[in-house]
């Protein structure tokens, strides 16, 4: 099974090998959805599990996400042509006043690898921008990141603005938050729907939200 080879190439963090295998499989007529689900997404889930268990680390997560992205870049146009949509849309950004983006980028990459469409607003994002982007992109989820303890107030404000838009407009998004100073208790207190301690947990949360 060559889909298994794609799975193995992601676990070897070998982007070139992934591109070669996916290209060859497409030529043979293998279903893109099968390559995506059983090759790329399955491999990223395996890496994510080992990351959460503490046997793999941030670089392995980044390298696996790179390999998955190399494959996705080939598969995405074909999936789109055949009318297959992403499993959901996530608007993500680091809250106002905070420029840190490493954790947020990692979560974005892993969400994309898991089949989500990700709209990344970058860092230092005004609360209203999350609402606007969610409306424009018909998003399912808004994901907020903060690194500084002093950014936690900005996170609370942003969650408040998105919640209010959920109540007062046609917006219907779930909100997840993450970052070093954030805890489950804090997430609950400010009205977020979930907290992801790491990137794989964030993917699990996002999958739960769209079911």
């Amino acid at each position, binding site marked *: 099974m060559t889909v298994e080879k794609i799975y193995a190439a992601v676990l070897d*963090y070998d982007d070139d090998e992934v591109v070669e295998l996916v290209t060859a499989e497409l030529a043979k007529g293998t279903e893109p959805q099968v390559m995506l689900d059983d090759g790329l997404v399955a491999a990223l889930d395996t890496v994510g599990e080992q990351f959460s268990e*503490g046997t*793999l*680390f*941030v*670089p*392995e997560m*980044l*390298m696996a996400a*790179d390999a998955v992205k190399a494959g996705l870049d080939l598969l995405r146009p074909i999936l789109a042509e055949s009318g297959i949509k992403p499993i959901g849309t996530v608007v993500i950004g680091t809250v*106002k*006043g*905070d*420029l*840190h983006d*490493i954790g947020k*980028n*990692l979560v974005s990459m892993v969400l994309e690898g898991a089949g989500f469409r990700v709209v990344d607003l970058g860092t*230092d994002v005004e609360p209203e921008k999350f609402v606007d982007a969610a409306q424009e992109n018909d998003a399912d989820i808004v994901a907020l990141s903060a690194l*500084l*303890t*002093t*950014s*936690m107030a900005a996170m609370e404000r942003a969650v408040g603005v998105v919640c209010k838009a959920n109540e007062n407009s046609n917006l219907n998004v779930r909100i997840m938050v993450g970052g*070093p*100073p954030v805890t489950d208790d804090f997430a609950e207190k400010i009205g977020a729907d979930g907290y992801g*301690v*790491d990137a794989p947990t964030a993917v699990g949360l996002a999958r739960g939200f769209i079911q």
Partner: protein
Amino acid sequence: MAAMASRERVLAALNFQETDRIPIDFGSTIVTTIYYTAYDDLKRELGLDHETVMLAKLKRLAVPDSAILKRFDVDTRYLALGVYEGDQKELDDHSYIDEWGTTWKQAEDGHFLFVDGPFFGMKKPKHEDLSLCNWPDPDNPGYYRGLAERAKALRASGDKAIILNMPNGLVHQCQFLRGFGDWLKDLYKSKEFVTGLMENISKHWIRVAENALDACDGNVDILFFGDDLATQQAPLFNPEIYREMVKPVHARMIGAVKARADVKVLYHSCGSVEPMIEDLIDVGVDALNPVQISANNMEPEMLKEKYDGRMSFWGGINTQRVLPLGTPEEVRAEVQKMVELMGRGGGYVLNSVHNIQGDVPAANIVAMFDEARSYHPSWAN
């Protein structure tokens, strides 16, 4: 136990001897000081009205005034190198390029972040690409201007432990030049490049450390530098990779320092760094900062038991929970707990976990330092 002078107290603790009270650091390194807004609150609380002096490179951090150091009986003093002269460029009020070619941008709260550098965005860099960086000169006079005089004056002003702050570390400097994520991937995929990168940075670092220690001529007790090797959950990269790639470089850097002068080495890494503590002992680190006790696998009880008499701990009062969110009584209880536990047999210098953040109430800062200076540990009887 007889009263000790500050320098003697700090060095005794770092030599794993018990002291009359716990030694205290405040403001002696760029990661054991205070966010300027919290400092302004602290001045008000103490009825002081001097002008706040900021750390030049990191404009959001304040240097505690001598009146405050005296008020809290702080045992350590901050000594820093000067600023590199030439090759920097102000882009606008909120961004600049440093002497290594890294672009820094300021966030709303004053925090500067690196956003571009000489090796950013390169796919699979090679050893020969190292020439793309305009390597700064370790003999640049700006680093050493006035350093000897400042060190001498500090020594003359009282019997304190003087901490020389190195302007950069190893891992961080790699990240500033290459980008955070790409550097991590290079450790696995571009080993030749990353080895050369660390070689160049460490050669520069060693030369600067040697020059600075020579200039200070015995008026330095501790040399400080830092990296970040861990996230709150786990080491940032596999400890095996640390051992293979980074540890030999750390060993060369610290070995050179200790061959040059009789100083202790204080090393900073946030996060869940426990799996590398044995390695840090190997390479000659005397004390580890900031002891982020809320991170995974960093429980102070376990650290003390496992590394007692081999690694000192410097920091440990939780900046993410008890300091911003607790009452002054809770802060005092936390200080007592840490002093009793970590100070027994020496090996502990008290400070917050990392810089005191802007959301810490002044009453809690006062409670932390007042309790540390006045608490009489049961082991000191």
